[in-house]
């Protein structure tokens, strides 16, 4: 649906200017919700503005729904933009127009008659749940309601793609959740392709199918949300994920000395992560039975990403060293993430 090919964007200025994007290549599939996450200044805002050419890339190609926008004239671009909706962090509603007038705006641009506009605006206001507010002005609405008007306005021209520029960053958590649910609902009901940028990992986790991590103008990692959450490769990605999935060791390990090698009577501490079906199999129980080791669960957490269960366990294995090694090999052969944290001397801690 959307292809960005080797996009560079350079802003002229002192000291060679700013190189905001350095060769970004992204492919967004039809009907998916694609997230771009990055810290401020990473280039995500420039990236999303390249999709509808509010920012013209210095080099590279932007192809949306089969149209190569980089080759378009201003006139052609204006027509193409009518098929790409956009919502903003600060809503950008016209303060001089009512809710109705704001949603009517893109229809006026499309040259529709008053009667057509009147007939088309109301269903979109109903879709976002604001039909009763149609005669109010934006200053009379809450942030969440303003964003709903923004969404209705973006959808009014019946676009195939919706771009969300930090659309929930100015909203409180509860309102954010309701806006994300609305976006997900629209995505399903209208088959709309959504690209969103954010600096908040929970937004990605909540609604995205795939995600790209951007840093310093480059995409450093991309894949399905589940993949990125369960097997993050880059430090920045891990940092984003740690705000949602705790990768730090729990407090009970404070002061514990870990050794990389096993001693005659040391216990092994492992972190296991389970994804999807492996989370449903009784792996720990069968390991205990087979290898005559004891497993104490020190920490456990289970979460869902896109309806897929995703869990983390920290376990301590005790028993004879051969048994522990066999158990470790057994676990390694299963479909789960495994990380050896280290060996600890037996009985140094009370095991719970």
């Amino acid at each position, binding site marked *: 649906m959307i292809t960005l090919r080797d996009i560079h964007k350079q802003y002229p200025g002192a000291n060679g200017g700013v190189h905001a994007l350095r060769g970004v290549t992204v492919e967004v599939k039809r009907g998916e919700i694609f997230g771009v996450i990055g810290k401020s200044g990473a280039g995500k805002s420039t990236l999303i503005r390249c999709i*509808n050419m*509010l920012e013209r890339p210095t080099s590279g190609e932007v192809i949306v729904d089969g149209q190569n926008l980089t080759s378009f004239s201003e006139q052609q*671009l*204006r*027509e*193409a*933009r*009518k098929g*790409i*909706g*956009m919502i*903003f962090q*600060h809503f*950008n*509603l*016209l*303060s*001089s*127009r009512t809710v109705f007038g704001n949603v009517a*705006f*893109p229809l*006026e*641009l499309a040259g529709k008659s008053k009667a057509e506009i009147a007939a088309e605006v109301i269903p979109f206001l109903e879709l976002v749940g604001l039909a009763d507010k149609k005669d109010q*002005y*934006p*200053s*009379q*609405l*809450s942030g*969440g*309601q303003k964003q709903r008007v923004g969404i209705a*306005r973006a959808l009014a*021209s019946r676009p195939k793609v919706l*771009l969300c520029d930090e659309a929930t960053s100015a909203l409180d958590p509860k*309102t954010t959740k*309701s806006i994300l649910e609305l976006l997900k609902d629209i995505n399903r009901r209208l088959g709309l392709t959504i690209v969103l940028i954010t600096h908040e990992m929970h937004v990605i986790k909540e609604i995205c199918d795939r995600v790209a991590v951007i840093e310093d103008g480059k995409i450093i990692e991309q894949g399905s949300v589940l993949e990125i959450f369960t097997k993050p490769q880059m430090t920045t990605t891990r940092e984003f994920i740690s705000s949602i999935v705790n990768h730090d060791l729990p407090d009970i390990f404070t002061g514990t000395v870990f050794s990389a090698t096993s001693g005659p009577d040391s216990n092994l501490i492992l972190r296991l992560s389970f994804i999807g079906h492996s989370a449903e199999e009784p792996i720990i129980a069968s390991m205990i039975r087979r290898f005559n080791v004891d497993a104490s669960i020190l920490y456990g957490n289970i979460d869902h990403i896109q309806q897929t269960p995703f869990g983390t366990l920290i376990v301590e294995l005790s028993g004879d060293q051969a048994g522990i090694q066999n158990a470790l090999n057994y676990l390694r052969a299963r479909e789960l993430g495994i990380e050896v944290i280290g060996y600890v001397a037996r009985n140094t801690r009370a095991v719970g």
Partner: protein
Amino acid sequence: MSPEILALLAESLLETIYMVAISALIATLLGIPLGVILITTGKGHILENIPLNRTLGSIVNACRSTPFIILMVAIIPFTRMIAGTSIGTNAAIVPLSIAAIPFVGRIVETALREVDYGLIEAAQAMGASPREIITKVLIPEAMPGVAAGLTITVINLIGHSAMAGAIGGGGLGDLAIRYGYQRFRADIMLATVLILIALVQIVQSCGDHIAKRLNKKQIGGSSHA
């Protein structure tokens, strides 16, 4: 005060209103496009054109830095070309308009600058052309500021129109100079001053009222979802 004097005051008041109204109208019709050009041709704006922007800016500054009484005298040949004469109420409209156009231009420019660039970006994202952005976004959003600015323009014009009286432009200023000053009629002087004060008060109140009506940004009773 004799009926003759009252008739004279009424006639002068009508002349003043006529001069101010026509020159305000001309200044608005030409000043708003000027303000729009000044803002939209600026750096990074929708119709960026730096040479045009600089040239217009310089002309506007030159006009605005010339004291009105000097401008009025300096452009007498031009006034004669347009109005056919350099004396009288119709002739006074020419320098009044010339002085007010750049003033309105700057005021409109300032009002348009207050419009959040995010709105322009949103309109661009919806496929709006520069003309649509100007007529459907910039001007409607800036209307409260433009209305407040036009009020100031009208009040300035009332002041300038009194100065135009000094060179035979007619109106209350003319009356005050000829009767109040040259014939030592303090009562007429006082009457013209009072009428001018009342006129300015009325214009200001009307202007404030209109600006308030146009401003949709501060409507009380915000509700939360």
